[in-house]
């Protein structure tokens, strides 16, 4: 008995979970703060959660180049986890900046909104740092359950309800798949540690032929692919992205997607390394399918949030190209891509947050006609983000795609790179349509309701700086991404 207590204490390493611990403590404190504050007044909660994220950011960064593991190998906070955690922190910060005025406009300023975002970020950190399938699974659940609530946050709007419910049902289903996969893998290998699974595959190379192992691995992948919205598990994305509150849509497409990529990368590259040839051919097909489905359906969309949802699917496809390459260039390119995508996508959504009316029925292609003349600054910002989403220089979207395809070519997947570039060409059409509406159509409205508030303006400014900085001098951050590989 004494031994057990000793053993339990020896396993604890607070350093390895410090960032998520800080976030959870702040989340709980802010829950109390919002209970005791005046009804409808949530501005101070928003700023306090920004402060929490800044502190967490410093705590996270202090662990750079100092990998900390613990809890009987169920967590490892290495550079990889630090990089992805920083992406999620940035995404959460930008979301909170654009949320306060948005919530007031839509008439639902509820304080619990912000702690839920903090808990989501903590869940994302556990996903990025987990080295045990149980840690990853529970992190995923913390993240998902907060997001179900946030997606359905506007209870009096049918679309938001639909988004929350749809996400919940399909998400619960995919969770079932994931957990079943974990159970089957545990049955074959006798462990849930990723290192243990890797050791098993190495010791039994013919395990790839074991039906139970294959079934478990595939079910596990389905769970992750659902979260990153890869085809053919993307059906929920357009409805949920359209119905959810716009800042939450922006957050979902950046933070949780990055976290799911982190978990997917750690599980496949560390755990299932022995199955590289099988997995790369699977990812090849999925990457091409995801890009193509996303881009081609986006062509016919009129609603901007829906269009960006399909664009988000196609970007998941581009990022998966790095996973196919399975080399150092491709992997660090995924990290870089996720960071860039956070800035450009959240920036675009922040502009949509500003130009939407209450209820957001005007966020269509016709709704932005003449925006470039009536609100020139917003027009320029949106143009920069769209250029980046297209992948044109000198924006970050170009460098990110360049690294991704460079990795694929280096690994010998020339055709995959060609298909990716062709897909980018297709995507020009629907991004340019927005710009044509903004600059070549006569304004039908005066956009008098657009009031640029400071926090949202800050988030747009940060995104613009991020997109341009990573586009013009990508070297420094790219080096960090290289150090963050396995």
């Amino acid at each position, binding site marked *: 008995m004494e031994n057990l207590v000793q*053993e339990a204490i020896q396993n604890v390493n607070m350093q390895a979970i410090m960032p998520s611990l800080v976030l959870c403590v702040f989340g709980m404190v802010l829950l109390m703060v919002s209970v005791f504050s005046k009804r409808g007044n949530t501005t101070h909660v928003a700023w306090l959660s920004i402060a929490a994220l800044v502190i967490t950011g410093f705590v996270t960064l202090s662990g750079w180049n100092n990998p900390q593991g613990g809890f009987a190998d169920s*967590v490892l906070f290495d550079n990889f986890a630090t990089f992805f955690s920083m992406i999620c922190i940035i995404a959460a910060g930008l979301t909170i900046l654009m949320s306060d005025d948005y919530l007031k406009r839509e008439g639902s300023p509820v304080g619990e909104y912000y702690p839920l975002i903090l808990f989501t970020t903590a869940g994302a950190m556990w996903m990025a740092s987990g080295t045990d399938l149980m840690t990853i699974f529970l992190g995923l659940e*913390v993240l998902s359950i907060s997001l179900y609530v946030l997606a359905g946050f506007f209870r009096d709007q049918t679309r938001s309800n639909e988004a929350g419910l749809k996400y919940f049902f399909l998400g619960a289903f995919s969770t079932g798949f994931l957990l079943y996969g974990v159970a089957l893998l545990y049955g074959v290998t006798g462990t849930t540690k990723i290192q243990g699974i890797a050791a098993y595959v190495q010791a039994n190379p013919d395990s790839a032929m074991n039906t139970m192992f294959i079934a478990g691995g595939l079910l596990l992948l389905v769970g992750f692919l659902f979260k990153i919205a890869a085809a053919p598990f993307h059906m929920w994305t357009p409805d949920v992205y359209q119905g959810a509150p716009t800042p939450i849509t922006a957050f979902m497409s950046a933070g949780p997607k990055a976290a799911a990529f982190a978990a997917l990368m750690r599980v496949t590259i560390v755990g299932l390394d022995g199955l590289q040839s099988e997995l790369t051919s699977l990812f090849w097909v999925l990457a091409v399918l995801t890009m193509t489905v996303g881009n081609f359906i986006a062509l016919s969309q009129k609603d901007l949030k829906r269009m960006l949802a399909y664009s988000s699917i196609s970007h998941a496809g581009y990022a998966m190209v790095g996973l196919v390459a399975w080399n150092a260039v491709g992997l660090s390119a995924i990290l870089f891509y996720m960071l860039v995508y956070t800035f450009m996508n959240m920036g675009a959504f922040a502009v949509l947050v500003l130009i939407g009316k209450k209820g957001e029925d005007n966020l269509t292609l016709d709704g932005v006609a003449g925006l470039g003349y009536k609100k020139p600054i917003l027009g320029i910002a949106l143009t920069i983000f769209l250029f980046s989403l297209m992948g044109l220089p000198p924006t970050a979207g170009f460098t990110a795609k360049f690294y991704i395809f460079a990795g694929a070519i280096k690994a010998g997947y020339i055709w995959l790179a060609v298909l990716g570039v062709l897909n980018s060409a297709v995507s020009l059409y629907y991004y340019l349509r927005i710009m044509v509406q903004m600059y070549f159509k006569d304004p039908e409205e005066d956009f008098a309701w657009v009031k640029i508030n400071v926090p949202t303006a800050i988030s747009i400014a940060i995104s613009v700086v991020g997109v341009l900085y990573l586009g013009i001098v990508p070297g420094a951050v790219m080096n960090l991404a290289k150090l963050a590989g396995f």
Partner: protein
Amino acid sequence: MQAILFYLTAVVAILSAFFVMKCRNPINSALNLVTTFLCLAVFYVMLESPFMAAVQIMVYAGAIMVLIIFVIMLLNLGLTVKTRYTHGLAAGGILSVMVLFVANYFTRAGEATGTGGSVTSELIASYGHTELIGRAMFVDFLLPFEIASILLLVAIVGAVVLSKRKV
């Protein structure tokens, strides 16, 4: 003897699980679910894990069932739930039967066998079940165990946010 007991329990478990879906009255469904849980507890006993059997009865057949029945009563669900036949239902049924056959085939062919874990009968004999479960919870899976508490907190907060009448 053990095989007979297993098949008897399995038949009861499957039948009651079937009636969980088939019953039109939600209370009847809930009671059938209790039977299923009890059969699972019997399986745990047969697998030499009496602790799990006790937990199964206390937590699932006890606490969770009370919650489910409570919700049914509170929501005052109509006594009969009308179900409408769709082709999706039949397709789903056929698909799951096919999956069952495939799984059965691979299991019998010996392709879907697992490896033994670290917990053996000797280990159980020397430590005892409760200590082994405690070790798994507080040594091997301490962090996931603690994350589960955050998970529950988030779920409670979410339920309150989504269900309270006035902001």
